């Protein structure tokens, strides 16, 4: 109907396959669910191949292979080969830890299009502390191996209060490693990062200084290194258009086969996400209540309901709304129009108190022990 805002309808373009929750590292900002240890089942090779085929038939073309640590799956190359044959652009999203020259060569001959590795910090002590595992030197060696095999070096560094003061050093490290792409991803507070938010959230001043340094560097290395800077939305006054609209573009499949409209959606109460072992991807995408839950605008509450900006940001992130307000239908409190916007300011205050207390709370590392206790 003319004049009414229309909700984008579409088929999945992006499939994120979280192949496993197993991981040798223990990053306290990990976005995996805190209770991941309760979801240890993993889809078989055949089941993943079927998921890839069915999603491809619906129109998915970008495939992210992540986890946990996807390298732990022994069938990774077989999965890559199947996906590549289907015409996916295959992205391996790994910590890089444990990657060898032979494995890179094997993945390459299976048709892997691109590898992204992540480093926690630009120096050994902090990197190894944040990863919970000695891994710095090995990761730097892997970065070089990836380049030596003819892949561009795509490096991701997650930014938070423990490393944001090292922005200059991070940029220098990326240059020294010959990075072609650098993703500076400000932490998003889900999963373990939410648990450790007080210790991870930078102050506004820290964030602004770091951003200025990164933007200046971006200009300087233009043409040699592409820098993607992912802004933290806590310091914005409008939320992100989460997932480009619920159920319009993105499909995540968790290690146990749960199909999620957003990789955090497992936490939303009563959403009852379907499992790929029970339904086809087409049924899940088109008919499941979970994928239809936040499609369109009918579910919205005020102020989003009557806000003209809803076609731009879809009311923001459902998981963030739930984590901060306890109501998954609420306006994302990042929005300055939200009556609960103060919950964001309170979160910022709590982080500041932790920072100036002189006795910061200890970080809770992402591992099975902690997951079993806290999950």
């Amino acid at each position: 109907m003319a004049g009414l805002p229309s909700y984008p309808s579409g088929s999945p373009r992006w499939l994120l396959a979280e192949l496993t929750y197993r991981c040798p590292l223990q990053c306290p900002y990990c976005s995996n669910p805190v209770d991941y240890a309760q979801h240890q089942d993993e889809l078989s090779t055949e089941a993943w191949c079927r998921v890839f085929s069915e999603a491809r038939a619906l129109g998915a073309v970008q495939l992210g292979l992540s986890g946990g640590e996807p390298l732990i799956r022994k069938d990774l190359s077989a999965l890559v080969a199947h996906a590549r044959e289907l015409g996916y652009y295959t992205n391996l999203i790994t910590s890089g830890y444990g990657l060898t020259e032979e494995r890179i060569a094997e993945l390459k001959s299976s048709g892997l299009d691109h590898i992204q590795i992540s480093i926690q910090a630009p120096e050994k002590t902090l990197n190894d502390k944040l990863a919970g595992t000695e891994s710095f030197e090995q990761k730097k060696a892997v970065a070089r191996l990836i380049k030596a095999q003819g892949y561009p070096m795509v490096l991701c560094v997650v930014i938070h209060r423990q490393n944001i003061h090292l922005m200059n050093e991070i940029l220098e490290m990326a240059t020294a490693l010959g990075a072609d792409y650098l993703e500076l991803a400000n932490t998003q507070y889900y999963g373990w990062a939410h648990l450790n938010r007080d210790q991870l959230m930078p102050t506004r001043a820290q964030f602004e200084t770091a951003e200025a340094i990164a933007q200046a560097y971006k200009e300087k290395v233009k043409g040699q290194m592409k820098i993607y800077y992912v802004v933290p939305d806590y310091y914005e006054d409008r939320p992100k258009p989460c997932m480009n609209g619920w159920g319009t573009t993105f499909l995540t499949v968790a290690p146990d086969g749960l199909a999620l409209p957003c990789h955090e959606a497992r936490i939303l109460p009563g959403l009852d996400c379907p499992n790929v072992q029970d339904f086809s991807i087409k049924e899940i995408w088109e008919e499941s209540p979970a994928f239809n839950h936040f499609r369109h605008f009918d579910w919205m509450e005020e102020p989003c309901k009557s806000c003209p900006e809803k076609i731009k940001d879809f009311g923001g992130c459902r998981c963030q709304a739930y984590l901060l307000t306890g109501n998954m239908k609420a306006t994302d409190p990042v929005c300055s129009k939200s009556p609960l916007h103060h919950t964001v300011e309170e979160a910022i205050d709590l982080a500041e108190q932790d920072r100036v207390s002189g006795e910061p709370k200890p970080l809770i590392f992402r591992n099975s022990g902690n997951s079993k206790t806290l999950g």
Partner: protein
Amino acid sequence: MIQDTTRFGLSPLYRLQWEESQQRFVMLYPEGMVELNGPAAEILKLCDGTRSFIDMVNALETAFDTKGLRSDIEELVQAALDHGWITLLP
């Protein structure tokens, strides 16, 4: 500067692919993609490293049975260069 003899190739890691479900070509790259309209796809298909710019113009003018496409093609090729989809070949 784009000259008659300039040749172009897709940048490393970029892939031009026909998408049956979308009935159009897309340009794929690490963690991203661009959906291309018909003319853009026709031009980018010719950036295969073998053709010079003037060959591309001639090929497209023949294919579409028209003249005077040069400046439109140049504009698109320049934009593709600026986006990093294609590179100049020596």
